[in-house]
């Protein structure tokens, strides 16, 4: 099949809906979407709407429901934080002929979305985490625990499941998963949980936190208690937040993908779907600007659902973290760079 190329200049009114407003990663996704928006010379609007963090799930439902009853919305791009609870609201949007694309975090049941733009292959996430664990702990492996976000965060749960599956593999036999705890993506809770793990499992050598809040809090906790030599931290983190901890060895290695690119690819996919240039069907290929060609496939991590996988993971360590933390010098830390 030929990869479909988007025709610029059509009018598609789009809403980009993150889990909530106010934190860096979603802003980066917004940047990527804006970039694509400009590239495609969309005559319509791109609105960046989101709930507050405290009211994330109900807020998402509210925004989607309102969007569904608006005449001037053609497509919704959502990072789902409400599990299947968003289903009926998205059904209503689809009933109003709106295109629904999920990114970052899908609808678990897969019904009410057209397409999921996966940042990475969820099944790969487990392997990436296990590999980092081995690389940090050495070939002899060791014991480690997982510090996740909230127990009902769909993407985190999928990654942890994939990690557990990966661990069954012979190659990772030396790794022992002790416990899974939740820090609710709240700094204080994550910090306390990390220290509780240390106290509970004296022979634990690694905390794996597949959440940017958790990994930073855990690293800070280890640093504050002078435990960085004995307990390492790894997982999914933002280079800018992890810079210090990677440099001082508390979190020698962690991974993430580019949220800018994720927003960019999501925008392209949605634009193409909404303009009717492509259909959400298995095997359809399209070109997403500078990111290249993607092919829609069945999502193997869910029973129903189509996805494209953006990939790849970037694994950060002492060699590349600084460059990643300050892309172009001034993006993330204007104050720090202005002054010194």
């Amino acid at each position, binding site marked *: 099949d030929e990869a479909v190329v988007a025709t610029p200049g059509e009018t598609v009114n789009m809403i980009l809906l993150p889990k909530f407003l106010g934190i860096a990663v979603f802003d980066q996704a917004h940047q990527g979407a804006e970039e694509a928006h400009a590239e495609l010379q969309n005559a319509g609007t791109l609105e960046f709407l989101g709930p507050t963090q405290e009211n994330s799930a109900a807020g998402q439902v509210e925004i989607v429901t309102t969007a569904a009853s608006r005449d001037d919305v053609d497509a919704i791009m959502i990072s789902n934080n409400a599990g299947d609870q968003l289903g009926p609201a998205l059904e209503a949007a689809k009933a109003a002929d709106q295109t629904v694309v999920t990114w970052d975090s899908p609808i678990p049941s897969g019904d009410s979305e057209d397409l999921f733009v996966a940042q990475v292959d969820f099944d790969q996430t487990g392997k990436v985490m296990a590999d980092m664990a081995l690389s940090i702990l050495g070939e002899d492996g060791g014991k480690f625990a997982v510090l996740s976000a909230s127990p009902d965060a769909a993407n985190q749960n999928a990654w942890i499941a994939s990690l557990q599956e990966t661990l069954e593999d012979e190659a990772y036999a030396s790794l022992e998963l002790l416990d899974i705890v939740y820090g609710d993506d709240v700094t204080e809770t994550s910090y306390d949980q990390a220290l509780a793990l240390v106290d509970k499992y004296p022979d634990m050598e690694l905390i794996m936190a597949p959440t940017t809040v958790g990994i930073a809090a855990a690293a800070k906790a280890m640093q504050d208690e002078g435990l960085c030599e004995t307990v390492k931290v790894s997982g999914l983190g933002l280079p800018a937040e992890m810079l210090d901890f990677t440099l001082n060895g508390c979190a020698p290695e962690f991974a993430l993908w580019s949220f800018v690119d994720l927003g960019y690819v999501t925008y392209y996919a949605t634009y193409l779907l909404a303009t009717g240039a492509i259909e959400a069907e298995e095997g359809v290929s399209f070109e997403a600007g500078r990111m290249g060609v993607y092919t829609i496939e069945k999502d193997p991590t869910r029973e129903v659902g189509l996805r494209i996988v953006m990939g790849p993971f970037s694994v950060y360590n002492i060699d590349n973290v600084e460059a990643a933390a300050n892309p172009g010098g001034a993006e993330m830390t204007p104050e720090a760079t202005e*002054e010194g």
Partner: protein
Amino acid sequence: MYRIRHYIRPEQIREFSLIFIIMLAVLFFGTQIDGYYSARTFNRIAASVAIITVLAAGQTLVILTRNIDLSIGSIVGFASYFAGQQLSANQDMHPLIAVGIAIGFGALLGSVNGLLVVYGRVPSIIVTLGTLAIYRGVLVDYAQAKTITTDMMPTWLVDLPRVNLFTVGEIEIRVMVGVAVLVVIAFQLCLTYLLLGRRLYAIGSNPDAARVAGLPARRIVLLAYILCGALAGLGGFMFLVRFGTITVSAGVGLELSAVAAAVVGGVNIFGGAGTMFGALFGAVVIGTLEQSLLRMPNVSEFVRDALLGLFILLAVASDAVILQQLRSLWARWAREARETPAAHSEKESGHAS
């Protein structure tokens, strides 16, 4: 014996019931958790309650006047973000100035609350429910989704959580714990020995009577709000020190934790009664339960909250029972003293002269 009863009232020693409850909790968890009786347990709990203690102290000041400040979670977030931003822009800033900025910023937000309550005559719960949302909203706009991270901070700040004031054996008294205890003691002294402190109680105890007695109620309530804001600012600074990474959601929900600590510590939500030590012990009760449950083996993630709620309820209930027992004990003593009037009056004249 008579002297003791005469000088000490159940209301004054009610905090002992909390200590008793803490001891019970510690005994219980000691049987459940290996190596629980250790300096490390103490250090962990102490470090974890420091911030809440400072916030609860401020909250207590406001609650005493029959008001409430639900905005402190947002003040903490904003103050820590603001102080962090100033520090990252100005690495050489003197630590005291940095702390001063956080406290001053908190006091500023607190004074907005206070002015609205006092001069706008808007009920405090409405004002602070409003500013809870407003301060957070302004912070989100102000921060532009940027995060304060440890690498922007000067080294002294990053190292501060590790600094001990002094150690006794393995027990470490960290700077932040020291600050919290200092705040509690200082404000308790103010409440007991400053006229202002007593007036805080008077206003909360009976606002009508305070007006009739000619107390400058408005200024005092305003001051309580400013102090509460200032302590929330200090709490914000401690938040920055402890967690390093500050997003716009820093401190969300802390207002409820602070109110919970104060209420569990026996501070009357309708004003007039309560102490700083009560707030401290309230924070310690909750902190001990939380931290110990986290470390209890065989308690799954999903059972913990249920147990925590149950234990808090038990703590509040037994506190009430103990206090009631103390009261009736005193009443009995008072009656005995009255039934032996000779001995009574003799001793009374003895101490009165």
